[in-house]
């Protein structure tokens, strides 16, 4: 197993593995099922949602069978145990990403975490002097990038609409990198929000550079870590971002739980988004004061077995080791890039080497629409994502309506990558592309030349 990620030439096949994949796979019951008439499942859609090991399922079940109660309320034994389990989960998850427990806010998912920050910013007006560092209005700017998932784009579009602020973005270059020189941040830039790793291109953002530029003009930073935290070691304090979000279900954990990370002094100054029970300090009929973070941002009885399950997932990942997870996925990504590059008419969207790149491999097949590629793969038991992967502007940028995307996790094997590549060959052959058969390409507009360019 290599630890370098410089290029394809170092990609190993059959070198000593960092991960005992067979042992890992045995922990995931779903991976042994068959689909579409008895074909073994080849699950290559972990970028959308990952599968969960027995350890996670067992942790949730055990919590519910032994300790279930509403947390942070009541003084009976179960309430104590449930609160301990919930706060222990927070501490383990915080440690996993290099944060303090008080900096971890449980949310439904990353989308909710981003909306929380966006709404807190529009709530800053009239929320006291401390909150003014979040205030935003006409003339101010939010900066995102062209490769963002809709979750890190639409909430900022909406914030700008509500407040009269302006949305700007870093464009994406032809090779799938952020074009950092095309726009200059200003003293009016309030926040820069960007994906750590693109969910389509796999591109890893230059976090330090973006943070430095934002800090220089006094802007906040928000890191969408949905595609990084599950796949590589991430230390949020070292990255020095102000906020970060990630979702449990993409990192072998349950759905319905995610994390908003915020530097403690920022969370302490930030006004709430959702209000109600649990998040208060004192309530009178005339008004209320709010609890310190993270409780201030966790109104209502929170998801609890899910938080416990997510903590079990980070324990599971830590046991394997995130360096090993990363190396294993780098090996799979290299195999996919190499294998797909060998199929005529296949174009990879984004970087074609492992340089500053993670394991989401999106591609288009000349003459075969992504839906049709996905259908042929599905027929062979291979599950991939097709469409725009919630990054429609990015697909427009590359002049395609849709792409196919394979994405991996620690349980995937090189043989599964082979099945992917074989399936793509089969799709070309099924639709009569590049086989020398007489089947002409459709006369309708080529999907690769979207007229919006």
């Amino acid at each position, binding site marked *: 197993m290599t630890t370098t990620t410089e290029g394809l030439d170092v990609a190993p096949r059959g070198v000593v593995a960092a991960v005992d994949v067979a042992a890992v796979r045995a922990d995931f019951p779903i991976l042994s099922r068959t689909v579409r008439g008895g074909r073994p499942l080849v699950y290559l859609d972990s970028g959308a949602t990952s599968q969960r090991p027995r350890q996670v399922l067992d942790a949730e079940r055990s919590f519910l069978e032994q300790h279930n109660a509403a947390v942070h309320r009541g003084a009976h034994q179960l309430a104590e145990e449930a609160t301990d389990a919930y706060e222990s989960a927070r501490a383990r998850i915080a440690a996993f990403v290099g944060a303090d427990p008080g900096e971890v806010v449980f949310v439904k998912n990353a989308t909710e975490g981003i909306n929380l920050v966006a709404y807190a910013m529009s709530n800053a007006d009239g929320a006291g002097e401390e909150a003014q560092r979040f205030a935003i209005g006409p003339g101010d700017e939010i900066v995102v990038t062209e490769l963002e998932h809709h979750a890190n784009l639409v909430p900022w579009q909406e914030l700008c609409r509500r407040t009269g602020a302006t949305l700007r973005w870093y464009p994406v270059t032809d090779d799938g990198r952020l074009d950092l020189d095309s726009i200059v941040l200003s003293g009016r830039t309030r926040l820069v929000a960007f994906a750590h790793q693109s969910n389509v291109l796999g591109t890893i953002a230059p976090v330090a550079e973006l943070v430095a530029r934002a800090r220089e003009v006094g802007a906040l930073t928000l890191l969408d870590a949905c595609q990084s935290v599950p796949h590589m070691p991430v230390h949020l304090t070292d990255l020095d971002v102000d906020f970060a979000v990630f979702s449990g279900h993409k990192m072998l954990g349950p759905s319905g739980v995610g994390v908003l990370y915020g530097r403690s002094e920022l969370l302490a100054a930030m006004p709430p988004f959702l209000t109600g029970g649990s998040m208060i300090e004192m309530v009178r009929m005339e008004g209320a004061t709010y609890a310190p973070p993270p409780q201030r941002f966790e109104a209502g009885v929170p998801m609890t077995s899910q938080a416990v399950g997510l903590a079990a997932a980070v324990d599971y990942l830590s046991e394997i080791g995130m360096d090993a997870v990363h190396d294993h996925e780098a090996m799979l990504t290299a195999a996919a890039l190499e294998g797909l590059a060998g199929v005529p008419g296949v174009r990879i969207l984004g970087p074609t080497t492992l340089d500053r790149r993670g394991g989401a491999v999106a591609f288009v097949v000349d003459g075969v629409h992504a839906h049709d590629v996905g259908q042929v793969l599905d027929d062979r038991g291979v599950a991939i994502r097709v469409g725009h992967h919630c990054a429609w502007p990015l697909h427009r940028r590359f002049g395609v*309506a849709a792409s196919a995307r394979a994405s991996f996790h620690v349980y995937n094997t090189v043989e599964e990558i082979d099945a992917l590549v074989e399936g793509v060959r089969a799709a070309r052959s099924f639709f009569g592309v590049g086989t020398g058969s007489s089947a002409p390409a*459709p006369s*309708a507009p080529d999907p690769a030349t979207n007229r919006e360019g």
Partner: protein
Amino acid sequence: MQLEQMYHEIILDHYRSPHGSGLREPFDAESFQVNPTCGDEITLRVRLDGDTVADVSHETLGCSISQASASVLTELVVGRSVADSMRVLSAFQAMTQGRGQVEPDEEVLGDGVAFAGVARYPARVKCALLGWMAFKDAVVRTAQIETALVRTAQSRGGPRTDAVDPTEATT
């Protein structure tokens, strides 16, 4: 291999040589529809001659199923009365949304029966219906235009509220 159940040879033929492809003039109404889950798009134009669908043309940016479906639609509805074409549309919709439980009527659907296999793949039903929804919308727009013209010319009766039902609006 279940693939052939969905990709019937008729579908592949229409995909390779689609009917009605390329937007044409003149037309009475145009509809733009998009499948938000995958970003596929269709622009479809309709020209009516009295009560008859005189021409349908479209530009489809999508998968084989959506392109073939728009092609079959063109073949099935051009030359029919609006009411008839809406009956075909209903039958096509019932078949594709029927999860494989609805027996298609070849008399009504012609080449459209080739899409019966799509009904077994719920995620692809929207692909098959994209062009048909554009056709329905365009016909409604035609009816609304006509209604507006009639109202202006004759100014009899109150404003129509039933223009969303194209079969009624044109009878």
